[in-house]
């Protein structure tokens, strides 16, 4: 494993039997898993290159059990790694050998659906798609739709602030969550938000969303549900160059149109997808754009005409508007199958997740081609074009010595490039263990220290998901020290009134 995790605490490991027994008293029955064989499914998440058996797996069923488990671990100095469905692509749920793996899968009920207030109260182990399924009979849906939505859970979505293909128009998780019940590592239970808007005091809900399981464990989530748009149509637009495609995206937004979805694929991704699902994608283009408009039919038709006009002005090689729901879904079929399609043309692939200012796309793609030649690895790109979130898929063969390492180095170079052009390390997959050591590319020591001080406010002893997000673990006491140097009468030059 190339990423160093916190050293195992031998004293804790030496007390394993006692800890397991104590946890069994809190979560009776089959909720504590301690045999190596039964723990095997928990050794990894969606980032399968990293594997580690936990010390013990605990699957609580009630908030009180979660509070008791965390309180026990807090008192006894035992580390805890929370886990939803284990679909993280950044290793957010990678276990620790001396830690409790706290699986939230049994929190799988939808508690209430409230159409008057357009909210649903769900347990964190409910899958993303199940929320939509619970409300779609009334014409509602839950907007964030990460590609893993059939498996990933709302608790994990809150931890990672998950996005999806529709988030430019409808927002990511943080814009669609109104409240949660949160258990702190101390075992204390706090409620943040509710069915109302805005927080009473500090926006701790906004802070916890996207905190990657480092601040607390969510045991209930209140999400907004939206009326499903009346209709949707898509345009499939091919361009000879990524520059033309990028210009088209910019001009669509510049014209005041925020599409429900706007996805771009590069040549290798187009060809892999077409070979796999035969969606009718043109094979002679280097950039393919899917632009989806949703809303009332009159609006969709009106805007789709404008999008096609803009596409022609941007030298589109092909441009088709969906004439039926089947055709719209066919346009999407290739994009939605892009990852498995790439999986067919390569034994393994490594999915990256940076965001760039969109105008930098041609430069980034050009530099990526140069890196591809340097590392001797192919790369295919899918791109949430509206918000600049790029998913390069690096093709490699884990059975060839050195290829995984080269793929990881290639990936790190891509993310450094994203930051260099004004972007960020991760748009929706999270930092986890994967991008942890790249954090200093984007943040100074002071930036990271302030983030870690916030962590200390929630988890003084660093027991919740240590080894994720932050490249260096500092003790809270050390971070808390003040070094103030400002002598005498400061800055006489400062204007005073």
């Amino acid at each position, binding site marked *: 494993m190339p990423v160093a995790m916190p050293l195992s605490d031998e004293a804790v490991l030496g007390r394993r039997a006692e800890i397991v027994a104590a946890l069994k008293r809190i979560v009776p029955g089959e909720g504590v898993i301690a045999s190596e064989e039964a723990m095997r499914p928990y050794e990894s998440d969606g980032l399968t290159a990293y594997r580690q058996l936990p010390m013990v797996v605990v699957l609580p069923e009630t908030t009180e059990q979660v509070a008791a488990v965390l309180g026990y671990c807090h008192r006894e100095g035992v580390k805890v790694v929370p886990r939803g469905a284990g679909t993280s692509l950044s290793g957010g749920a990678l276990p620790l050998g001396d830690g409790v793996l706290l699986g939230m899968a049994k929190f799988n009920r939808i508690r209430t659906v*409230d159409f*008057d*207030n357009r909210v649903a109260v769900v347990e964190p182990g409910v899958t993303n798609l199940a929320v939509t399924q619970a409300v779609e009979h*009334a014409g509602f849906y839950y907007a964030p739709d990460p590609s893993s939505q059939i498996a990933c859970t709302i608790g994990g979505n809150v931890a990672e*602030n998950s996005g999806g293909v529709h*988030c*430019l128009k409808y927002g990511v998780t*943080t*814009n669609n969550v109104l409240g949660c019940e949160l258990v*702190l590592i101390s075992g204390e239970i706090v*409620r943040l938000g509710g*069915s*109302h*808007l*805005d*927080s*009473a*005091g*500090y926006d*701790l809900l*906004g802070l916890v*969303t996207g905190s990657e399981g480092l601040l607390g464990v969510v045991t209930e989530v209140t999400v907004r549900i939206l*009326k499903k748009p009346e209709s949707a149509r898509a345009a499939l637009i091919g361009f000879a160059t990524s520059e033309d495609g990028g210009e088209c995206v*910019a*001009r669509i937004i510049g014209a*005041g149109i925020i599409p429900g979805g706007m996805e771009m694929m590069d040549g290798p991704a187009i060809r892999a997808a077409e070979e796999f699902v035969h969606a009718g994608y043109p094979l002679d283009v280097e950039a393919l754009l899917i632009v989806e408009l949703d*809303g*009332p*039919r*009159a*609006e969709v038709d*009106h805007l789709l005409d404008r999008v096609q006009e803009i596409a022609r002005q941007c030298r589109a090689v092909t441009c088709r508007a969906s004439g039926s729901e089947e055709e719209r879904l066919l346009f999407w079929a290739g994009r939605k199958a892009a990852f498995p399609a790439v999986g067919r043309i390569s034994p393994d692939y490594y999915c990256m997740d940076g*965001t760039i*200012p*969109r*105008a930098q796309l041609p430069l980034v793609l050009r530099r990526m081609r140069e890196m591809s030649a340097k590392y001797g690895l192919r790369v295919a790109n899918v791109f*949430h074009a509206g*918000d*600049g*979130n790029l998913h390069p898929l690096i093709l490699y063969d884990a059975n060839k010595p050195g290829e995984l390492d080269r793929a990881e180095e290639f990936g790190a170079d891509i993310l450094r490039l994203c930051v260099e052009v*004004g972007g*960020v390390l*991760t748009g929706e997959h999270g930092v986890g263990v994967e991008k942890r050591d790249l*954090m200093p590319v984007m*943040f100074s020591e*002071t*930036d*990271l*220290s*302030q*983030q870690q001080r*916030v962590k200390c*406010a929630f988890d003084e002893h660093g027991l919740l998901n240590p080894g994720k997000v932050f490249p260096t673990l500092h003790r809270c006491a050390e971070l808390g020290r*003040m070094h103030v140097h*400002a002598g005498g009468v400061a*800055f006489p030059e*400062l*204007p*005073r*009134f």
Partner: protein
Amino acid sequence: MVEDLKPRDSAEVEQTVRWALAGNKSLEVVGRGGKRAIGRAAQWDATLDLSGLSGVTLYEPEELVLSAQAGTPLAEIEALAAASGQQLAFEPMDYGPLLGAATAVGTIGGALSANLSGPRRIKAGAARDHFLGVSAVSGRGETFKSGGRVVKNVTGYDLCKLLAGSWGTLAVMTDVTIKTLPRAETEQTILVFGLDDAAAGKVMAAVMGSFADASAAAHLPAPLVTRFADVASTHGAVTAFRLEGVAPSVIHRKGVLEALIGPFGALGELGEAASRAFWRAIRDVEPFAAAGPGGERYVWRISTAPSRGAEVGRALAERAQAEILYDWAGGLVWAALPPADDAGASLVRSTLAATGGHATLIRAPAAVRAVVDVFQPEPAALAALTKRVRESFDPSGVLNAGRMWAGL
């Protein structure tokens, strides 16, 4: 003697905070001071005036991002965005009319610190939802940044969310990046007359769950209607819905909306210009303006579940003769109460204990704001967490100490 310190750049802001730390002084952090009368009344040793940090540093309409120094006037940013057919979709309200302060003096830093929003809150979110990146000086005198200049980013904790609505108690923002969005091509407002508060709540819920896709829904009980020349009617109360978008869409949705609400009462409409003026007045709570007929009343801003809004309004109206304005489809209750020693706090808080939600005392004399909890009191575990979070940024209590909670 309170000193006014007016740094010219972010380095001087850092120096100022370090100076305060070294001298054990507390700072009141202000942009251009328009919201100084909000919060607990407290004393500070010096004022840190950020109006010198002004100017838009980046605006890329096609990327939907704008960066500015924190003291940049909102009006300047909104004018710049409008010139590119864009806007701040969170529709930041102007507290000027309500507080009897100057209008249109707000800064972008102030808008974010107060997590401002407007009638579009229910569709487009508040300032927090459009706050992408920040550079700020903590109460430790250290400059840190969080977020970025792209619209989608999950790298590290989202400290922007934490700073939004923290009223300057965690850090002094110096540079911010926000999301801009296209302005709607046109807008229209449909009115339905004569509904009581409870019925209006139900109609608003039905509309918000329909294909009408309203971007605002408000209810004005009869006593307030006379304060709006454009909607004054012989039918008493007015319930209003705003439709925004491209013309074919607005026309279509108007039909959807009218079919839905027609059975509940007589309908009216406001064209584009009147609609804009109407929602600006709702946004700024003009019926309770300090210069208006209810100017001496104390004003609470209450956020609750939309279905509970009418219940909150009725309780406050019956038991404290409050005047009520409902926005956010009933989820935002503005309550103007006759003056009282505790500003009606015990009634407001006990009502919310039953319905859920939170209340902030926005307008009351300083003497009242010195003794009443202005912000919603928090349960013990949450209050302790809030205190630890504050201390993680400002362990010495330099920045706006005591503005949100006593002793913090």
